């Protein structure tokens, strides 16, 4: 909401500058996004160059058809000759004049006395857009006739202004009003508050205004006021200027009054052309099936039961709290007005406005909850302004309500407030803070909440917040006084960090990919019923899709080497409300199967886990290069998924971690030396290294410490369909030095077992 500061100062008297106000408000009341400088530059006495003028003479410029030559009284003994291009005025008009030397917003230099088509022009008669008071450039500004020529223009129009751009939180709809901001400003800057309190115009007639509310739940209060002999026309310049600075468009005096008063009191109003209401009555009710309404923006709205309507007893004339109907709109022909100053409950308004995608200044306030008490002063101010600005004659008024809500009463313990805040705020100061914010505090610390805060402040803690926010910049920075600490990562959290570090050390960079994917290999994967897009529709059960896409991004970018991993969750359907969320470690790397295998070996080795790899078949992997471990799979990505030879793997972190020993026990590998031997055996091509090593371990028994394949050789000496597998063997006993005979015996056992199981021939 935009808060012009000159307007604000009408309601609050304070020496604080706009920036000081903004700062106090932003710490203790509402975010102030910025302070906007508006109007003409307030430098070097610039304001002295703007005065009220009266046109004494106006005639056609002798040398130019489209210009007027004016003599303007600007308060000096001699009139000022000014050439003007506008024609919306005549002799006697009261106008705004910029004298030579005046600086206008957006003009490079000051105004100068100069010749225009041979006639001297000493200044400029101003249009509203030339001084930042409005968008209009169709004519010059016409001021009220009573003003003395020579009066400083700044006394009449907000010629220089600053505008606070405030964004109150959703619990503070009371701050979507000038009055609300003024109350806070007065409380926070110790200023005097002067809320608008106009003299109510007395009704000339007492004709009844008939209002029936069928749904007090949706509309707890409806003030209707009738006006006759309304003269619809343009608004005076000061009103146009204020609306402009407040970010609203001037439409006509009647509509402008409703918008202006909404801005003042935060309670939206609506004006109907009363002659367009059948029978001139108002019925507030819920929509019926099939009902429609053409709203002010010209759109025909299809209504559903539950939408709250203002009707004239026969048909809908407004979508309550959101937008008026086109047919009953106030127009230039309107002479009878029905002013609505009502109150609507938030529930349901958001639903209707979301369904229709129709948000307005009004609905934005109603959906947060507006004080029902604000309707009365809003009606009073609007009535006064309709009388003063549109010559309206009040003709009856009604206030229909089901009883206005009581003000909440909450007991505050000031010592509790100090304890929670962590700052000793003396009880007297707490009382003063609350009273300045319009709370009433009795001797027993029963605190009565003002009506405009009744929805938000209902408990002691809410009152504590009122104190806390005012003293917020005095709260000391402390740390909790601890009696116990337990700061540590769990074993799984530590393990995840170590997995990340291992892969980073192995040259892999970490990727983050979406949890939501276009599709998933698991047909039972959880699917969003209403996804944002087809790209983000299914909760993944594998990291693979994201990693392949991440690799593709890097291929396209020409990056190398490409090695990526991700440590994140997958979401496995569980048959219950919530899926099983499992941490997975996935990777993709150039270099095909071997590179994937290398990464998996590094992971297992760093985790002190034996790696047991078995051949499997998986649809997304190369049929000859696919394997599983106890914790997941690895292999070469099927080339149809991404061009090139890509190693991929995915391990379940909990499964990987399950066999981790709690602690590692020392084995004596130092005292007694090891015997190292290499053997090579020839076996059939299809015998896998893993199977050979398994048999070696089985046959080797306790004295075989290590067996590792270090070479596989194909060649003529080995024969067709055969291969030579070279193994490095380490024999060692923890309690003695093995003799050569003992080592040879173990080796013989191993060779014999390989011969028996695989028909292996010893080659060396």
């Amino acid at each position, binding site marked *: 909401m935009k808060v012009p500061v000159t307007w604000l100062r009408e309601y609050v008297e304070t020496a604080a500058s706009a920036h000081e106000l903004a700062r106090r408000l932003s710490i203790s009341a509402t975010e102030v996004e910025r302070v906007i400088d508006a109007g003409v530059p307030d430098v070097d006495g610039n304001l002295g160059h703007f005065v009220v003028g009266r046109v004494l003479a106006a005639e056609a410029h002798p040398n130019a058809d489209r210009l007027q030559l004016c003599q303007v009284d600007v308060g000096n003994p001699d009139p000022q000759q000014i050439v003007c291009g506008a024609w919306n005025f005549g002799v006697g008009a009261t106008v705004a004049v910029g004298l030579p030397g005046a600086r206008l917003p957006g003009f490079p230099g000051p105004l100068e006395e100069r010749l225009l088509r041979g006639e001297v022009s000493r200044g400029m008669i101003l249009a509203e857009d030339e001084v930042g008071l409005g968008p209009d450039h169709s004519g010059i500004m016409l001021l009220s006739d009573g003003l003395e020529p020579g009066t400083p223009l700044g006394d009449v129009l907000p010629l220089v202004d600053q505008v606070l751009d405030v964004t109150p939180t959703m619990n503070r709809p009371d701050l979507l009003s000038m009055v609300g901001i003024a109350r806070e400003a007065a409380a926070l800057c110790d200023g005097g508050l002067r809320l608008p309190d106009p003299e109510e115009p007395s009704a000339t007639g007492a004709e009844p205004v008939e209002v029936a509310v069928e749904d007090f739940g949706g509309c707890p209060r409806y003030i209707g006021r009738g006006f006759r002999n309304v003269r619809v026309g343009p608004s005076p310049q000061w009103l146009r200027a204020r609306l402009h600075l407040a970010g609203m468009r001037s439409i006509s005096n009647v509509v402008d009054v409703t918008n202006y008063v909404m801005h003042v009191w935060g309670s939206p109003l609506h004006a109907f052309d009363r002659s367009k209401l059948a029978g001139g009555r108002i019925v507030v009710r819920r929509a019926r099936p099939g009902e429609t309404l053409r709203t002010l923006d010209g759109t025909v709205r299809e209504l559903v039961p539950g939408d709250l309507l203002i009707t004239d007893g026969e048909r809908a004339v407004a979508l309550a709290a959101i937008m008026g109907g086109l047919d009953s709109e106030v127009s230039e022909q309107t002479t009878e007005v029905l002013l609505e100053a009502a109150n609507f409950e938030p*529930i349901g308004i958001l639903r209707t406005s979301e369904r229709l995608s129709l948000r307005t200044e009004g609905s934005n306030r109603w959906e947060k909850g507006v004080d029902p008490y604000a309707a009365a002063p809003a009606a009073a101010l609007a009535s006064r302004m309709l009388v003063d600005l549109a010559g309206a004659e009040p003709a009856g008024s009604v206030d229909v309500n089901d009883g206005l809500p009581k003000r909440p009463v909450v007991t505050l313990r000031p010592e509790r407030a100090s304890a929670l805040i962590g700052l000793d705020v003396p009880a007297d100061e707490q009382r003063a803070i609350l009273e300045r914010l319009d709370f009433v505090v009795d001797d027993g610390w029963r605190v009565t909440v003002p009506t405009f805060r009744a929805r938000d402040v209902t408990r002691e803690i809410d009152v504590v917040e009122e104190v806390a926010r005012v003293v917020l910049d005095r709260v000391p920075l402390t740390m909790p006084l601890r009696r116990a600490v337990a700061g540590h*990562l769990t074993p799984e959290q530590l393990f995840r960090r170590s997995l*990340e570090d291992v892969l980073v050390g192995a040259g892999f960079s970490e990727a983050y990919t979406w949890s939501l994917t276009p599709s998933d290999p698991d047909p039972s994967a959880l699917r969003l019923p209403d996804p944002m897009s087809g790209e983000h529709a299914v909760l993944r059960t594998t990291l693979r899709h994201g990693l392949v896409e991440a690799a593709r991004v890097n291929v396209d970018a020409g990056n190398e080497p490409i090695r990526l991993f991700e440590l994140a969750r997958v979401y496995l359907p569980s048959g219950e409300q919530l899926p099983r969320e499992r941490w997975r470690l996935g990777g993709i790397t150039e270099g095909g199967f071997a590179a994937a295998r290398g990464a998996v070996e590094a992971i297992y080795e760093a985790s002190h886990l034996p790696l047991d790899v078995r051949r499997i078949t998986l649809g997304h992997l190369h049929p000859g290069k696919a394997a599983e471990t106890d914790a997941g799979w690895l292999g070469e990505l099927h080339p149809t998924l991404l061009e090139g030879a890509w190693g991929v793997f995915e391990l379940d972190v909990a499964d990987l971690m399950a066999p981790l020993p709690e602690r590692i026990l020392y084995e004596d590998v130092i005292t007694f030396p090891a015997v190292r031997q290499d053997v090579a055996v020839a076996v059939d091509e299809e015998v896998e290294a893993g199977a050979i090593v398994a048999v070696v371990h089985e046959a080797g028994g306790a004295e075989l410490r290590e067996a590792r394949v270090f070479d596989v050789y194909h060649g003529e000496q080995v024969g067709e369909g055969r291969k030579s597998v070279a193994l490095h063997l380490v024999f060692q006993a923890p309690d003695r030095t093995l003799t050569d005979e003992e080592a040879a015996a173990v080796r013989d056992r191993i060779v014999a077992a390989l011969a028996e199981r695989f028909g292996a021939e010893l080659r060396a």
Partner: protein
Amino acid sequence: MDVEALEQAALAAVAAASSTDAIEAVRVEYLGRKSELKLALREVRDRETGITLNAARERIEGAVGAREAELERAELDRRLAEESVDVTLPVGGHERGHLHLITQIRREVEDVFLGLGYRVVDGREVETTRYNFDGLNFPPGHPARSPLATLFLDEDTLLRTETSPSQVRTMEAQQPPVYIVSLGRVYRRDTPDATHTPVFHQVEGLAVDEGITLGDLTGTLDFLLKALFGAERRTEFRTHYFPFTEPSIEAYVSCHVCDGAGCAVCRHSGWIEVGGAGMVDPKLYEFVGYDSERYSGFAFGWGLERIAMLRHEFPDLRELWRNDLRFARQF
């Protein structure tokens, strides 16, 4: 034989030797088994001559040894000089990967709080409306409950919109004192653009104990902000509103780029908004069965991406999800 002349000749030869080979030849000639001196020593019969010869031998041996060491050192120096390489030439071969920027910040934040004695709680991403909204005091009709804002799996199940459900789950599972942080992915129905992605990361902090104050919250956040943005930063706290905290505040840190003077990063305000926080609302204690008269506490929930963007000044959040190595390798 003339010992003195022999010694003179030997010392002259030592001095003339210009390589280790040459000195070896000198050694053989004057000290070898067949050298004149050795032969003479073998023949010696009287003590006087023996002493003279041995003294000469020792002097020659000393001279040969010293010259040999000198020459060896000179040859080593020469060889090392020849082995000089271009030390500015990179060799590569041990390329490390890079942790994702968000992981780095995540660890930084975790370590700050581990140091303060907090535990790290993992939480879960698919949540029930009970934990994501009801337990956090979101009123019915709150905009976050709308499917326009939140990704639902069904009426009661959704992708968590903040890390706060882990607060409720933690409090349900244990009595105070509670000191935890919880970091992870959260989800909102936001169309991706430079400053929004539908998935992002939050850090949630929760402390509930006897005597926890608003000052403890601002003090803790001040500590965290200085750890993240520099010890010389200033912090400021402004009133705010969240359904799950009362009072609620928003934390600001003085701009690390201009130090408060005003620049594009802080939008010329000198301050940067970092995230929300507040004192845990008593409604939450009611929900989990804590005694709100005995215990008080604070909570905060901040976006890690926002911290990353502010600190490293990259313009588009989506880069964090594109995984282009040219981006990742910078951090």
